[in-house]
């Protein structure tokens, strides 16, 4: 079944076509979300939201772009929205903590740490360091870098997903790597890990 048939099936409310679509692209969508949010449970929830949106808005898909481009676009937008919401929540939490004396924060941190219990502490520390460095990148640099590194997408496809020129993608990824290196160098000098 090709992309057009799949979309056609979903537009007519065919669950079998939807299942095929999900099974074909679930890994790709989860991986993209994971590259941005760095938490597997969140990434799976986001991926589900992406597929629900696809099912709901399939009739708007005109086939001008590839199906994967559409999926990547929704996945990155939803992941960024989650990060923005989390930032907002953290802001209000920090206000709350000033009044409660920060009693709730420790439990949240330990929950996040238990996400991948089989990884040793050095790996976890390294991973946390990298995630923090990626999270500090500006949004566009983060998206371009994640699509390139986690999904191994060529610059041309990243340009289509982000709806920007090829030169802009090159520049974004170059700056992302430079920023990342600066942060990691800073940490190396301070011996964070």
């Amino acid at each position, binding site marked *: 079944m090709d992309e057009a048939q799949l979309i056609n099936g979903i537009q007519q409310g065919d669950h079998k076509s939807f299942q095929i679509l999900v099974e074909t692209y*679930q*890994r790709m969508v989860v991986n993209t979300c994971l590259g941005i949010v760095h938490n597997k449970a969140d990434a799976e929830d986001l991926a589900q939201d992406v597929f629900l949106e696809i099912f709901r808005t399939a009739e708007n898909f005109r086939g001008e772009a590839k199906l994967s481009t559409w999926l990547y676009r929704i996945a990155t937008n939803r992941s960024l929205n989650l990060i923005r919401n989390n930032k907002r929540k953290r802001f209000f939490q920090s206000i709350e903590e000033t009044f409660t004396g920060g009693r709730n924060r420790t439990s949240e941190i330990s929950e996040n740490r238990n996400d991948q219990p089989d990884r040793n502490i050095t790996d976890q520390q*390294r991973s946390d360091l990298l995630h923090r460095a990626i999270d500090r990148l500006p949004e566009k640099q983060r998206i371009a870098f994640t699509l390139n*590194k986690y999904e191994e997408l060529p610059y041309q496809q990243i340009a289509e997903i982000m709806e920007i020129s090829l030169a802009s993608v090159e520049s974004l990824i170059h700056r992302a*790597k*430079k920023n990342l*290196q600066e942060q*990691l*160098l800073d940490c190396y000098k301070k011996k964070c890990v």
Partner: protein
Amino acid sequence: MVSYIKSNKMKHSSIHKDLIFYIDNELSVERRIAVEKHLEECADCRSFLSFLQEEIQIIEKEKKPEVSPFFFTRLSARLEEKQFYQTQSQWVRLAQPAFFSLVLLAGIYGGLKLGSNASSPKVNQQTTSSIQMLNDFAAEPIESFLLDEL
């Protein structure tokens, strides 16, 4: 000596800036050779390179995660739930205004009905009772009443 240290420091920082591109094989041939030459001599830069490589390696480890085997089952459940609420909300969207309009109309009608019924009988009742009192007074003179009391 100072200039040598300065130039060496400059070289370190310039090499550090290029290492991430060196790992990704994105340097020109000349630059790549210069970086490799420096790395052979400089233990600190080699150490930073291996630190950087280990960090970048994390992405490789995290890439392509195993998706939960219940992913589609959970998604189907959410889809059904959403569709149920959508059909329900369509019903609610239609029924709610109709219901409230009916209640409002019934209220207005009831109010009007009560209003029209309540005003006239009250006046009538009052007049009748006062008439009755007057009539009683007329029918039963005070003398006979006092006589009865005795």
